[in-house]
């Protein structure tokens, strides 16, 4: 007698959206030596109750989705990065210095609720 799960199209569910920014498009290739661009991925999508257990969801997300099902005034669990990786940038500044900097938690690898 289970209630049929609402047909939720996958593309609306919480997942990582890939987005590559090519520095050449911004004219920054003239001073950024490497890399050629930047993975500006982002997380977006719904975290419906029925799927929080499979959508890389945390226990908290499961409880919040449950509460949302009981009282819609409580917001749904949100779609956020669950795994991030660093990037390094090799660039030249206005004093002709060559600079190498590491930036942690810059690229979204995985998302979850």
């Amino acid at each position, binding site marked *: 007698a289970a209630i049929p799960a609402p047909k939720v199209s996958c593309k609306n569910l919480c997942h990582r959206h890939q987005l590559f920014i090519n520095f050449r498009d911004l004219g920054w290739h*003239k001073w950024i030596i490497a890399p050629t661009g930047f993975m500006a991925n982002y997380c977006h999508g719904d975290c419906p109750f029925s799927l929080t257990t499979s959508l890389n969801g945390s226990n908290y997300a499961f409880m919040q989705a449950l509460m949302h099902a009981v009282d819609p005034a409580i917001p749904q669990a949100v779609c956020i990065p669950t795994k991030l990786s660093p990037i390094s940038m090799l660039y030249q500044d*206005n004093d002709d210095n060559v600079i190498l900097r590491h930036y942690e938690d810059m690229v979204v690898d995985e998302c979850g609720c």
Partner: protein
Amino acid sequence: QTFQFQEHAFLQFLGLDKVPSPQKFQPVPYILKKIFHDQETAATIGVSRDLCYVKELGVQGNILRLLPDQGFFLYSKNLPQASPCLQKLLYFNLSAVKDEERLTMAQLGLDLGPNTYHNLGPDLELVLSLVQEPHVWDRSVPKPGKMFVLQSVPWPQGVLHFNLLEVAKDWSNSPQKNLGLFLEILVKGQRDSGVNFQLEDTCARLRCSLHASLLVVTLNPQQCHSSSRKRR
């Protein structure tokens, strides 16, 4: 797709106040390329590395800068055969290093060019002397400052490195002290009598091929918390 890209905010994030517009790209030394590729590879295969420790150099730090030499050659008034092969004021602009950053490495690199370039024969050696805080006026030979390095090396292969960490810390703490370094290169066994044309030719080549740079590594405590200290 056009980006409403908050360019200024992103540049500030990179520690820049405006878009750099370099006239020409400086040569990137092998070590910076290696560190960049090692880090990119680790990030790609999902291996987490301590971003505040430069394994390839064995020092803490998350910002590496290669500062080009902005000094100039000096010409002594003596006769050519008695004067050193080369005299140069080396100057490195440390103003890019922010106050909150901690200097963990400052390595002077002296590239004299390929030694095949200089056909002086094996018996001649180089005597390098580096003098801190030289008082140089109108490009004449400076008054002696604090002798920093005096080294006699057989004609070198590749780049010579000198640790300038304490000097760079001095310069960074009190920029007015940064008068550069006076570099003098003598060719040992240089015959005093008579102008050795071959030697003169070599010294002229040396002046063309000499390339000096300062590799500076700093740690930004706001980006590198103590927890990122190398695991014991």
